[in-house]
């Protein structure tokens, strides 16, 4: 544990580097595109459009909590898809990140954990760029803001810690088990539908099956996504207890992920 905190202290010294690498990552991502940074707005917007057409107009959910309007459903979807995209792109990218930047690990004295941290953080920046779109559409599509929107940073913090822990674990294990990359993309599809993103937790089928409810409840992403939905869609208080437990789980995952990463660190230069 002492080593864990020492590592965290080391990381603090590298904050300028992390900051610069995130900026570099963002600059490099849109270099050569015509729209540049605007893609950070357009990507989630287009995604929302597709989901709204398919689920809102074609499938027409009749769940009363969604107000029966495709416009409401679009907002509901967006509350879940935006944070999910942050989580899933971070995980997929971090599965590769140590191999892609193998040069740094092999040739420069460089704390490798910076790489997944940069991945999660630059995806967080994308997420933040998508948030204004969401903020804009909430009143535009006829939902009112409540004071509970102020709890949004708490939800974001929980997700940040959870995502970071998961990505540290994934990135270090993938160095030894390349299979994880393929496993992960399938697992994330399953995970997406095992999280109440396209359907609300209040859906009749879920409420009537205790087995399904229990299953969804053990998924930490359920509580994180519901946090966003509470703040922005329902305009109600976040569920302190469930989100608190999720935060503890996120912290434990972070400690485990970082410890495993630290254990495997010495093998990186020769394995990546």
């Amino acid at each position, binding site marked *: 544990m002492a080593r864990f905190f020492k590592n965290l202290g080391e990381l603090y010294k590298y904050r*300028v*580097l992390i900051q*610069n*690498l995130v900026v*570099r990552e963002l*600059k*490099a991502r849109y*270099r*050569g595109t015509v729209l540049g940074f605007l893609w950070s707005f357009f990507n989630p917007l287009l995604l929302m459009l597709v989901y709204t057409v398919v689920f809102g107009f074609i499938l027409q959910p009749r769940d009363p909590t969604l107000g029966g309007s495709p416009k409401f459903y679009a907002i509901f979807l967006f509350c879940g898809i935006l944070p999910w995209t942050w989580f899933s792109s971070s995980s997929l990218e971090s599965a590769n990140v140590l191999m892609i930047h193998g*040069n*740094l*690990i*092999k*040739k*420069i*004295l*460089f704390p490798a954990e910076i790489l997944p941290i940069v991945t999660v953080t630059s995806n967080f920046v994308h997420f933040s760029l998508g948030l204004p779109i969401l903020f804009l559409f909430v009143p535009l599509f006829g939902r009112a803001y409540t004071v509970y929107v102020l709890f949004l940073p708490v939800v974001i913090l929980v997700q940040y810690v959870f995502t970071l822990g998961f990505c540290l674990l994934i990135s270090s294990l993938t160095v*030894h*088990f*390349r*299979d*994880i990359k393929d*496993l992960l993309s399938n697992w994330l599809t399953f995970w997406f539908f095992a999280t109440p993103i396209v359907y609300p937790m209040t859906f009749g089928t879920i409420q009537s099956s205790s087995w399904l409810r229990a299953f969804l409840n053990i998924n930490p992403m359920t509580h994180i996504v519901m946090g966003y939905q509470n703040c922005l869609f329902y305009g109600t208080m976040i569920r302190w207890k469930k989100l608190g437990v999720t935060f503890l789980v996120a912290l434990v995952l972070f400690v485990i992920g970082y410890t495993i990463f630290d254990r495997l660190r*010495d093998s990186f*230069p*020769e*394995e990546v």
Partner: protein
Amino acid sequence: MPAIAVENVSRVYQKYSARHRFQTFKSALVKGDLFRALRADELVTALDGVTFRVEKGQTFGVIGENGSGKSTLLKLVAGIAKPTQGRIRTEGKISALIELGAGFHPEISGRENVYINGIMLGLTKKEISAKFDEIVEFAELEDFIDAPVKTYSSGMYMRLGFAIAINVNPDILLIDEVLAVGDASFVPKCLDRIGDFRRRGKTILFVSHDLSTVDKICDRVAWLKAGRVQVIGEAKRIIDAYLQDVAEKQEKDFEKHRLEAAQEQQWEEGKRENRWGQREIEIRKVSLKSLEGKPKNVYSPDEGMIIEMEVAARSRADDFVFGIGIFNSQGVSCYGTNTYLEDLEPVSIVGEGKVICRIEKLGLINGTYYLDVAVHKRDGYPYDYHRNLYSFLVASNSKDIGISRVGHVWSFSPGIEMRPAGEK
């Protein structure tokens, strides 16, 4: 307290095939051998019990063949890899020139890369801003600094990488063979910078195959052989010992090569392309020896050589000339002579005998040489002519050019001052 103290350091790597089993879940799960200890035959020892110290302000060279563990050693000192056994202590800020521009991102500009690379190497933003112009000027990239790095040539890439790394201003500089790719004007500039560094009393660990540079800039040198320190000491002495060892190895390789070539040669001999004449007088065997009389194929330029021919005359003859010719690998004649040219009148030859040509000092430059030997009449009628059938190697540390080394000494009038390169 020395700047670098390496104490009994070993580093063991897993062989790739052994490592492979870690790579898939399947094998780890199915065989359950994830945590099995590795057998000795699955390991490669890159370094074995290496111990040395580098005092502050010293320039310490590491030489050795490919695969002797030089780069591994440098990575351990840099802290990039950890030793399997032993301990490495360093005092002060380290900058490692292991691969120049290793952290560059191709899509962003040179300017941005200078900042990020500088921060990676331990500079602050302010320090980089202060040194920015100097870095760009040194790299000669004033016109290209805002272009994406992917548009750079490999030379530009390297120059920028070197310029950043050298400006980190470390206490200890680790250099691994990075100067090998520079062009003729950039390398001296780099060496100049390294010289500056030495004058300011900084410590350098220098790994290179370029022995003349090692000789020039290093105070002490360690010679690594198969992961062990063979010997440590004053640069000149160690380099000589190393060269001696390399020459011995070359000798062995050469011998092997010659045995392999011998069969081909027989076939060629059948074609009589490289040997002609009626052999009224025959050259039966040619051997190359050192002046002490030991068979030898690899020589230093200052060494002498004995060419010994075993000859036999079918019947008594009184018109015969013995000759030799030395050619380099491009087929240029470096030297040729014969007994007739040197005013030796043949009187008689009967039966078997030996002809010995003693060369006191070869005076040739680096390279492979081929030998012609012949016995013929004064008018040129060949008895037995061997064309390029024998070869030897000259191995030299010096980089002089031409077809032979003309003996010489430099001296200067008092107004002109020179000193041997690398001396402080």
